[in-house]
């Protein structure tokens, strides 16, 4: 657990236009260790996907990384040239996108898309790549015959599992899951999460898990960072975060989801118009619990800010 796979240091991403620059991520720092599941949670637009895309260097104009470092196994990702980057992508870090439903090329067979990525990185014949694709499909419990199918012939859940299988194709050390289940219903969500957990046990990769769904997040992650307005406001092991959150935004986020078990609880959230501006750097609260200091009062259970 102690070997860091990914270190993000003071990452700042700006969306630059002619008139002004908006910070999509602001001095974000976190570390993901080998085999760990690290969660990033927060509302829409808080910068979760920006972080995911900058780790793989997939940011498009007008977004650019203006400050900070991304180290993968100690190697500087931001310093890689095009060829290094291509070889590194998917081989070491694979990603399941927010809309994995549309992540597959609609005009080529599923099998071809596996072969494409396997042969680009590993070489070998078409037949061996196909064989590997069959194994991968079996791992996510999809009939290998479906390799002959086109994406539109599969259900949303199947497509999502195929993308996950594809992400495992090269045994990456880190898997980025950017809201992998948002477009799916709750039952399929559970199946997929189950599968991700199984795959992780089997293959031992680390996961960066991004979602706004706190119940999913608490269920899956070892450690969680809560983002707000491009900054991390609280970072803690999930057990501590669940029961002993210190930042009012974290509490509001947790309060916005009904617990699946136990007595009825009144849902709470941020009151109208509450905003956190100028979020300070995190302070150590012990046991790996880091919180950004704030003037806003800490909430007790069931109370709106």
């Amino acid at each position, binding site marked *: 657990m102690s070997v860091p796979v990914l270190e993000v240091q003071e990452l700042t991403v700006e969306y630059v236009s002619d008139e002004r620059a908006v910070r999509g991520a602001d001095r974000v720092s976190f570390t993901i260790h080998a085999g760990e599941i690290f969660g990033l949670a927060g509302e829409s637009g808080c910068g979760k996907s920006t972080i995911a895309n900058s780790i793989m260097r*997939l940011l498009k104009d007008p977004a650019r990384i203006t400050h900070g470092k991304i180290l993968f196994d100690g190697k500087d990702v931001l310093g890689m040239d095009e060829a290094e*980057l*291509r070889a590194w992508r998917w081989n070491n870090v694979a990603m399941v*996108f927010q809309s994995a439903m549309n992540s597959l090329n609609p*005009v080529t067979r599923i099998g071809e898309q596996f072969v*494409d990525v396997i042969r*680009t990185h590993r070489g070998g014949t078409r037949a061996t790549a196909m064989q590997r694709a069959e194994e991968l499909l079996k791992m996510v419990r999809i009939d290998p015959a479906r390799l002959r199918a086109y994406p*539109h012939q599969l259900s949303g859940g199947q497509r999502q599992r195929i993308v996950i299988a594809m992400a495992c194709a090269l045994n990456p050390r880190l898997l980025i899951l950017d809201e992998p289940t948002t477009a799916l219903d709750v039952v399929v969500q559970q199946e997929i999460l189950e599968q991700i957990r199984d795959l992780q046990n089997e293959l031992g990769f680390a996961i960066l898990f991004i979602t706004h769904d706190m119940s999913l997040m608490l269920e899956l992650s070892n450690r969680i960072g809560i983002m707000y307005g491009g900054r991390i406001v609280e970072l803690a092991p999930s057990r501590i975060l669940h029961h002993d959150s210190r930042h009012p935004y974290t509490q509001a986020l947790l309060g916005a989801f009904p617990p699946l078990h136990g007595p009825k609880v009144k849902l709470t959230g941020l009151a109208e118009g509450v905003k956190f501006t100028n979020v300070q750097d995190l302070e150590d609260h012990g046991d790996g619990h880091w919180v950004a200091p704030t003037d806003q009062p800490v909430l007790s259970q069931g109370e709106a800010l």
Partner: protein
Amino acid sequence: MSFLLRRLGFYLLAFWASITLNFLLPRLMPGDPVTRMLSRSQQRLEPQQVEALRTLMGVDGGPIIPEYFAYLGRILTGDFGMSISRFPTPVSEVIASQLPWTLLLGLTSLIIAVILGNLLGILAAWRRGGFLDSIAPPLLVFIGSFPYFWLAMGALYIFGISMGVAPMRHAFSVGLVPGFNLVFILDVAAHLILPALTIVLVSLGGWMLGMRNTMIATNSEDYILMAEAKGLRPHRIMLNYAARNAMLPSVTSMGMSIGFIVGGALLTEVVFAYPGVGYQLLGAVQGLDYPLMQGMFLTITAAVLIANFLVDLVYVRLDPRVRKG
């Protein structure tokens, strides 16, 4: 498969409808086309010709239903009757002598324009805002908006008259015997260059812009981002992922263009005195050559339908999603 059969059925139905219209049109027109033609040609036709014309156009007063079936039978055996303006050549022969040249000119220029235009569009969209993307579209649209005959005459003046490097007229040099030998083929190619080039020049912009715009939309699709994350080579993403999806609308418009080729490129044929269907059709209209006009309309209809069917065939290969349609 059932998709293609259904399409085929639809095209056969459409073809039957156009034959029927072709049969009905002379009957629906006020007056008698034969009489009008006679007044135009100042009674220079023989009485048998007049009779033949009447029979051909179904205006000889016979009952309409048997006439209709007789007409259908003649059409299906390729008998379109006699041309009036080039009497006594059968209409099918007149068309057959012009069609190869029209097809040669039309297909050559279309294929070049489509391939070149799409490639330019792909590259421009891939490097959006780059050099090619900023220069090519405005330039090509500028050229494309010249009146075609002006451009064609300009080209003919510069290359044909001033520089004398291009042949001035016809599809091959006078006195050359058509045959499958190198001399003849080279001569035909030399005569083809200028007409084809001018057509390519004016149509290139449309193909390029169409492809560029679809491609830009495709480039923001999630599967392009995923392909990038997969670490694939840029040219592979550009061709197999982006262009492969973006080319679908292009295929449709190419199919429609193939169909209309058979109608001939009238202006090109006039300026370069190139033998072709367009020129012939103009002659038929001016000479009130009804049988020839009817024959040509049917040929054009058939060509459009066949081209559409070809597009369906190709489309099924390119886009798996329409197979169930």
